[in-house]
């Protein structure tokens, strides 16, 4: 057996990782021993989605690989291992820590670094860049003590950085040297529309501005001085003025580099030393540096194939791109500026809705050369296919970008040639998808994991779904959305069946549409739908076996099997007398007491048998159940509003009380949280709620589908300056539409993210009544509101229901395994080692 070739890869960014994956997972993998040296403190992560770090993603979420995976792939690796020198004669390299590695072939994937313009004062600690997770941590830290932030550079990355500053709550400015934003990717009219849209979101754009120096500020910590004499005060400066290749190693070892940097490579990605390859943003091909991940991945693939003796070559790459910048859809395809001689341009502009589309065609109007899309990128996928595959344009090419009520020729999934690129990040063609399906991939997830399609920037998800569904249905495969093994239906289908066939209980549902005994997935789902449609008492004999334990005992089970009790405190408003009752109950039953995030009081440590007595006292004192145990409307958080607050512009407490009273107890696919703020200072944090209401001088702004929790999501501004009546009407419709169409345990945030057409579609359904459902949705909501009952009041009046709260069917002794100890003056569950050991707890 011949000795393995030793491949050393310097750099573990996205492209370096892609190379490792290509080579280590190839059929010839055993011929190579791979060593990866990363200067960063962690292995490869997804830099394309870096901004999601601010949206709550952790470094782990962004990771593209792990030490375990590399070990499994038998790839050696070192982190924090910056390479210092290369000895090309001896074929070794030395790291900063003095470690020496020898190589047979070397791959440089060192990437690039952010260019910081040589402006006087650019070295102060508030001058930052946007490239690595460490950079983002520094931005986050600096933003916490800043009011104003400026991004220098109005390109793609600059706007993403501006979005991040905006979300961090800074007054945000973008300063651009060129006369327009995103000058590389889009034309001037497109740049103007983009600017308008971004400014309307509250970010100020300054074009044609050359920064000359940064000096101490008057109202802020710093001040940018421009060549035209203007100035801009700021606390934080973020440079996003392009990238420069990391090519020092190549320079030191006297490899050819470009005049303006970049390691010169040939079509096989080899540098001037045939034993050294360079790929990604450090490589200069045909005097061009590709600053996108897709071409980098193609280079990685070419280098990996060339190392295996195959005749691969890199021949340039498509730089088309589609993305959402600050909520604005932007697409750029091919020759966006119409630089091809003889090219002609079609333009469509809608200033009312802020939509701009331009299409560049050849002189004979036969082929598409490029396109710019702002505000609406729905045609991006088909335009890209026309361009990449040289598909002949229809007789009236302009019809491709005109609004959809005109006769738009559709480029369906079948019409695409097999060579059509579906995913440009991983260079997956339609033929690759078909092969994967032929080899047995029958779900979208499976196809994704086989082909890697849609796992890069994710921009092609919709196209991949179309192509896969089309291919699968051609083969007679149905795309499964079954809720569980007992029902061949999705939640939404079950909802329709229950409603249309007027099914009122689980046994009938099972007899008509299911099989088996059911399970802990379909039973609570059915119970929730029955409650949403018919709104009967949930502990009715026929519904009780369907409920999750929290619903069964109308309280929240804790780890030791005890329950917590949450009385409703509408809007967080409570009288001293009621507060005293809660205190007395907690004291009498020795309950641990804690204030919740929803402005209520949670009483922990109640044994099941104590719940009826506790609730009898609470109900007698005028409390209602808080539904903290249900997948249902929980709380409406509020600030004191104009009644007390100097800044309040509307009576937020009254509105919160009205809303809580209207929607309390409504069962839904998942829990629902609301808030009402009395002014734009937003003390009730309404933008993190499923339904958020913020007072304005003229009425109320409605926000929808926000979420705190595991994956925080800012609510979308849905409608502005509403009067009371319209506000309630819209909330009725949004909630009912959610309840009818969402999946099981799908929060409104995910429901919105998965909705085709997104916010605009929901606005269309709710505000413009595009589906003709508005009256129906309101009537359905009215019927649920009209049949509300306090479940605890009903339960206390039913002796049979109270039987179930006894500790045992054959004994009144309490469960001896439930034991407490004291901590900070209150109880907490005893840990196993703290429990009295004489008691038998298990067999």
């Amino acid at each position, binding site marked *: 057996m011949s000795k393995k070739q030793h491949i050393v890869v310097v750099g573990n960014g996205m492209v370096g990782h892609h190379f490792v994956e290509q080579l280590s997972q190839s059929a010839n993998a055993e011929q190579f021993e791979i060593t990866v040296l990363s200067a960063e403190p962690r292995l490869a992560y997804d830099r394309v989605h870096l901004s999601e770090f601010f949206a709550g993603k952790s470094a782990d979420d962004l990771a593209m690989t792990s030490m375990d995976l590399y070990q499994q792939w038998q790839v050696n690796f070192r982190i924090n291992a910056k390479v210092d020198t290369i000895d090309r004669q001896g074929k070794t390299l030395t790291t900063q820590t003095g470690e020496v590695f020898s190589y047979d072939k070397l791959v440089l994937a060192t990437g690039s670094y952010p260019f910081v313009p040589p402006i006087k004062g650019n070295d102060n600690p508030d001058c930052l860049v946007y490239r690595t997770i460490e950079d983002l941590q520094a931005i986050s830290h600096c933003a916490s003590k800043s009011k104003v932030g400026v991004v220098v550079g109005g390109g793609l990355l600059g706007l993403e950085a501006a979005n991040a500053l905006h979300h961090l709550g800074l007054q945000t400015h973008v300063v651009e040297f060129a006369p327009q934003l995103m000058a590389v990717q889009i034309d001037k009219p497109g740049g103007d529309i983009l600017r308008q849209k971004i400014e309307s979101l509250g970010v100020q754009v300054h074009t044609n501005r050359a920064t000359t120096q940064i000096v101490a500020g008057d109202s802020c910590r710093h001040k940018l001085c421009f060549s035209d004499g203007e100035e801009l005060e700021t606390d934080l400066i973020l440079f996003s003025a392009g990238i420069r290749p990391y090519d020092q190693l190549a320079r030191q070892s006297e490899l050819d580099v470009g005049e303006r940097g970049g390691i010169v490579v040939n079509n096989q990605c080899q540098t001037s030393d045939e034993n050294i390859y360079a790929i990604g943003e450090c490589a200069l091909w045909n005097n061009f540096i590709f600053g996108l991940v897709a071409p980098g991945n193609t280079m990685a693939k070419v280098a990996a194939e060339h190392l295996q003796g195959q005749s691969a070559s890199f021949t340039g790459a498509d730089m088309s791109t589609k993305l959402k910048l600050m909520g604005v859809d932007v697409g750029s395809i091919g020759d966006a500026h119409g630089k091809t001689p003889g090219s002609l341009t079609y333009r469509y502009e809608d200033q009312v809705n802020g939509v701009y589309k331009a299409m560049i065609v050849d002189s004979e109007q036969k082929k598409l050369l490029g396109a710019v899309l702002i505000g609406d990128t729905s045609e991006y996928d088909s335009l890209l296919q026309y361009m990449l595959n040289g598909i002949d344009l229809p007789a009236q090419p302009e019809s491709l970008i005109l609004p959809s009520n005109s006769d738009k020729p559709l480029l369906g999934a079948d019409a695409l040639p097999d060579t059509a690129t579906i995913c440009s990040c991983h260079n997956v063609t339609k033929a690759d998808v078909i092969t994967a399906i032929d080899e047995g991939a029958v779900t979208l997830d499976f196809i994704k994991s086989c082909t890697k399609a849609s796992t890069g920037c994710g921009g092609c998800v919709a196209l991949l779904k179309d192509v896969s569904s089309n291919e699968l249905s051609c083969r007679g495969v149905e795309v499964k959305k079954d809720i569980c*093994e*007992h029902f061949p239906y999705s939640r939404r289908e079950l909802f329709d069946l229950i409603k249309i066939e007027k099914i009122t209980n689980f*046994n009938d549902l*099972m007899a008509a549409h299911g099989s*088996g*005994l*059911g*399970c*802990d997935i*379909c*039973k*609570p789902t059915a119970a929730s739908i029955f409650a949403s449609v018919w709104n009967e008492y949930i502990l009715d*004999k026929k519904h*009780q*076996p*369907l*409920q*999750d*334990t929290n619903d*069964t*005992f109308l309280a929240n*089970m804790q*780890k*030791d*099997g005890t329950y917590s009790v949450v009385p409703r405190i509408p809007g967080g408003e409570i009288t001293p007398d009621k507060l005293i009752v809660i205190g007395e109950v907690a004291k009498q039953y020795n309950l641990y007491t804690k204030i919740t995030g929803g402005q209520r009081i949670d009483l922990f440590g109640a044994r099941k048998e104590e719940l009826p007595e506790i609730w009898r006292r609470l109900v007698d004192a005028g409390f209602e159940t808080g539904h903290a145990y249900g997948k249902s409307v929980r709380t409406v958080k509020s600030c004191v509003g104009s009644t007390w607050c100097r800044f309040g512009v509307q009576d937020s407490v009254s509105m919160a009380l009205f809303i809580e009273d209207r929607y309390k107890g409504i069962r839904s696919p998942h829990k629902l949280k609301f808030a009402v703020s009395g002014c734009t200072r937003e003390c009730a944090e309404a933008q993190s709620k499923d339904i958020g209401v913020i007072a304005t001088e003229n009425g109320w702004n409605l926000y929808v589908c926000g979420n705190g929790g595991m994956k925080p999501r800012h609510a979308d501004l849905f409608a502005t300056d509403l009067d009371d009546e319209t506000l309630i009407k819209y909330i009725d419709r949004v909630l009912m539409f959610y309840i009818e169409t969402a999946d099981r345990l799908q929060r409104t945030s995910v429901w919105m993210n998965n909705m085709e057409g997104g916010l605009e579609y929901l606005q269309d359904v709710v505000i413009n009544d595009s589906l003709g459902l508005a009256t129906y949705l309101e009537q359905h909501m009215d019927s649920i509101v009209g049949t509300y009952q306090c479940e605890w009041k009903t339960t206390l009046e039913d002796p049979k229901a109270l*039987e*179930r709260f006894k*500790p*045992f*069917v*054959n*004994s009144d*002794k309490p*469960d*001896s*395994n*439930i034991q407490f100890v004291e901590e900070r003056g209150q109880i907490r569950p005893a840990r*196993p080692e703290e429990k009295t050991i004489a*008691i*038998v*707890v*298990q*067999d």
Partner: protein
Amino acid sequence: MTTLAYADEQLSTATQSQRWVDICRQDQLIEDTGVAALLENGKQVAIFQLALKAQQIYAVSNFDPIGQANVLYRGIVGCVNSEPVVASPLFKQPFSLIDGRCVTDESISISVYPTRINDGKVQLLISD
């Protein structure tokens, strides 16, 4: 399989260390859901009666070995591949009502008690 017939067989072969113990009246059980019972030895049992299984009664230990609490009678009953199970209300693992094994982690199991109805009373076969 723990059927009534099997339970009767158990009775005929019950050794001196095994005996049938009265737990409660059958009408105290709640169809398709569980109740907890306390045995003389301090152990707790979760008892289920399934309407779709011809009112068959199943009894398993009430102690959830994963969540370490006496809660299994409060789980939702159902089936996995037509085998009746109860899902722990704490972390949702399904336990077979037939043999007590955790369906998703067969290294874990809970004890199962043969049951029968005698003169309107629910009885469990207990080994001393």
